[in-house]
């Protein structure tokens, strides 16, 4: 029982100690000390999370810490799951970060190694761990904002090197604070209606709130939380901030921070509000489904490696939210068993996604560090030059494509199980929505395979297509160790997910779906009690290995009988040897998909033909440009931005530069205020 507070206190102490350490220590030792402290934060926080998953709970009230409201903390299994995930990611990424900052890198390690960034990093890690432990509205919002601000500062770490970072920072700052405003409004309305701001009071007071108010609270908070999770349509910050942030930060944001959006959604939606009418969850499912398909389509089109990963985050969070929505829907129609299963699948996917996405961002950072290049079209040939990074990226990609034996497969299988069995639930809504959801999951899984074949094949195989890629060197040992930890986590999740079973059952119970034990872990197997289905990942792996061995053995046996063999050079049509320019690029690989989804993606193409001066028939230069803009962003954001710009322009007339006018404004303002006060009260 006393493990959780001790672990949390340790994490807080280490995190708070990390900030001054980052500020004052000299360059030489800064990376090491901050890295070790941050890893300590992760380990301590993760321990608390695991303890909570194991069934212990803890809550405390620290009255004096915050003025007026006081601080409330509570840890249950639901918080525990997210703390454990964040802790594991933070610890592994911190180890990776030491190598990233201290190793003698060629490209781009300077930004994160600066005093400011190193001071903020442990605080960001700490906030990731403490947000799920908050148990009152003010504590939660404070930690939430701490998380937003520290991550913003970290996103900006490399702003000196690239101007695009500032642009990304502005987007992120604005969108995350719009989210905060919505969250603030939603939770304040909730607290006012429930008559208390601690989560216990909210939970108790929720029955007395009118359905309209509850709906309002849910919509406001759901929009804010899904924006944090990077869901369409409020996703625009994600594909901007992730690529521009240093890879350590992208890994933390994508594997730990976006999860907290899911945490908030589950905490407020199912736990505090205790579920709600079908339209809440249909709304959530619609957003999730849209994000899943749209995110993976944009990822398929992206040639920027980190942008691709960022959009894939959007997709995976979409799938998670789809599961959360389905859980709410099942709970609404009274089928707690299926609700528990869907929620467990969604939460397991959060865990899986965190493991493989942190690994993938780590590998992407390793590539970026070695080459200074994120553009897949200019990479290639890295398998020979960075074999470990390539192997680790492959492990992560296997998890991301949702095929056995990757870890993503397990959770998507669970998700599909819950959706397919949901068809037994009577009702028109489920009969329409669930098949659609199954189709969305299947489509996004298929596209994800294409996306990660592209990322791995084009980025790491074949010959290097750029000088930078040709000169790449393997990353320092600590970066590889950090990624190795994450890869081990991926492997464990893929092979023995049953070990998480008990913890997931407790988490689902903490989220308000009591009386159901959806995932009975049998150690090596995953057994779904409620729908009687079993999956043994180890057997799947064994079958795959045997099948692969059989195929390779047969092929070897069949070709061995040929006695005469001659060496001949590669057939290159009689011309020169194939150059790297002839290899598949990310853009060319994605082209067929772009054609298929032409209507949805609306790519912009531009052909510019310049003839020579003497004759219009002889072409001197042809320029071809192909761009796949983020369509939702264009349609939705551009009008708003234009409107704001117009409002700003017209407001300039108010500030004409005359001091008299300004004094007049002050005077009129004061008088109005006084009049309002006098008349009003």
């Amino acid at each position, binding site marked *: 029982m006393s493990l959780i507070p001790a672990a949390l206190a340790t994490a807080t102490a280490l995190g708070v100690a990390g900030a001054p350490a980052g500020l004052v220590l000299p360059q030489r030792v800064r990376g090491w000390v901050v890295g070790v402290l941050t890893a300590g934060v992760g380990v301590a926080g993760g321990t608390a999370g695991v303890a909570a998953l194991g069934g212990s709970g803890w809550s405390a009230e620290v009255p004096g810490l915050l003025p007026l409201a006081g601080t409330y903390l509570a840890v249950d299994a639901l918080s525990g799951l997210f703390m454990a995930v964040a802790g594991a990611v933070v610890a592994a990424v911190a180890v990776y970060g030491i190598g990233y900052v201290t190793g003698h890198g060629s490209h781009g390690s300077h930004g994160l190694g600066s005093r400011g960034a190193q001071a903020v990093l442990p605080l960001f890690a700490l906030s990731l761990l403490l947000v799920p432990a908050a148990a009152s509205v003010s504590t939660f919002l404070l930690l939430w904002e701490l998380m937003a601000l520290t991550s913003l500062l970290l996103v900006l770490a490399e702003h000196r090197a690239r101007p695009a970072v500032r642009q990304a920072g502005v987007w992120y700052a604005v969108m995350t604070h719009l989210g905060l405003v919505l969250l603030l409004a939603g939770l304040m309305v909730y607290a006012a209606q429930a008559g208390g701001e601690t989560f216990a009071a909210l939970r108790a007071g929720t029955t007395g709130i009118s359905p309209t108010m509850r709906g309002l609270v849910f919509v406001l908070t759901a929009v804010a939380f899904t924006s944090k999770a990077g869901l369409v349509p409020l996703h625009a910050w994600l594909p901007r901030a992730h690529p521009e942030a240093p890879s350590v930060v992208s890994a933390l944001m994508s594997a730990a921070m976006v999860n907290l959006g899911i945490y908030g959604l589950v905490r407020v939606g199912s736990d505090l509000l205790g579920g709600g009418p079908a339209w809440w969850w249909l709304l959530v499912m619609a957003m999730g489904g849209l994000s899943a398909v749209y995110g993976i389509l944009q990822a398929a089109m992206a040639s920027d490696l980190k942008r691709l990963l960022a959009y894939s985050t959007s997709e995976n969070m979409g799938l998670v939210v789809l599961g959360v929505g389905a859980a709410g829907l099942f709970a609404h129609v009274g089928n707690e068993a299926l609700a528990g299963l869907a929620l467990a699948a969604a939460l397991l996917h959060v865990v899986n996604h965190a493991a493989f996405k942190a690994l993938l961002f780590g590998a992407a950072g390793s590539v970026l560090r070695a080459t200074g290049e994120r553009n897949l079209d200019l990479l290639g040939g890295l398998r020979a030059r960075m074999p470990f990074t390539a192997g680790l990226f492959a492990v992560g990609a296997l998890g991301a494509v949702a095929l056995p034996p990757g870890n993503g497969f397990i959770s998507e299988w669970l998700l599909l199980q819950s959706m397919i069995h949901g068809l037994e639930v009577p009702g028109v809504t489920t009969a329409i929505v669930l098949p659609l959801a199954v189709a969305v999951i299947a489509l996004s899984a298929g596209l994800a395979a294409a996306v990660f074949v592209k990322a791995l094949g084009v980025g790491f195989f074949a010959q290097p297509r750029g000088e930078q890629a040709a000169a790449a060197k393997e990353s320092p040992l600590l970066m590889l160790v950090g990624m190795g930890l994450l890869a081990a986590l991926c492997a464990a999740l893929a092979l023995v997910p049953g070990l998480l079973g008990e913890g997931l059952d407790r988490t689902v119970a903490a989220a308000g779906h009591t009386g159901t034990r959806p995932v009975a872990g049998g150690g090596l197997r995953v057994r779904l009690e409620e729908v009687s289905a079993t999956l043994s990942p180890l057997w799947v792996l064994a079958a795959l290995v045997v099948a692969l061995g059989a195929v390779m053995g047969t092929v070897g046996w069949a070709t061995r009988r040929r006695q*005469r063999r001659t060496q001949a050079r590669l*057939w290159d049509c009689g*011309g020169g040897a194939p150059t790297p320019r002839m290899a598949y690029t990310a853009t060319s690989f994605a082209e067929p998909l772009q054609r298929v989804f032409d209507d949805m993606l609306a790519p912009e193409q531009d052909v510019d033909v310049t003839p020579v001066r003497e004759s219009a028939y002889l072409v001197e230069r042809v320029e071809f440009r192909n761009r796949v803009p983020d369509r939702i962003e264009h349609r939705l954001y551009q009008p708003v931005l234009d409107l704001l710009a117009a409002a700003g322009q017209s407001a300039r007339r108010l500030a004409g530069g005359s001091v008299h006018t300004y004094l007049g404004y002050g005077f009129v303002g004061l008088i109005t205020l006084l009049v309002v006060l006098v008349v009003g009260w």
Partner: protein
Amino acid sequence: MGLLRKIRDTGQVAEPAPPRPEGGVPPQAREFGGSVQVRCVDAGSCNGCEIEIAAAFNPVYDAERYGARLVASPRHADVALVTGPVTRNMAEPLRRTVAAMPEPRLVVAVGDCAINCGEFAGGYGVEGAVSDVVPVDLAVPGCPPRPDEIVAALRRVTGR
């Protein structure tokens, strides 16, 4: 239905098979077993020979009924049908093409140009006859050779 009627009405277009051509059969040809895949290489011809090769495979001469078939890659080919004098630019590609063919393989020089540079002998861009670049097993003289002569050469290879 229309297609079937067309086939019935048209009947056979190909000329009756002429008698087996005279002349020795290259030793490798026996291994082909009557089925020969042919790759054409234009080493610098005026395209006259190409037109005649195309004619040799049209429905009238129909070299395919004797077991010869055109393919699109030397990797699939048993026989290289080389036309024209070998130009400087095509000398190396021709060598590589023949090297890319699986053994056993044959090289057939088609047209006077391929045999002795013909019309283009002494041209500044001409490297030499085909036999100067790769070993030649069979030659089909003529400028251009008639399709039936080409078919006859191929029949010597297929043995049909």
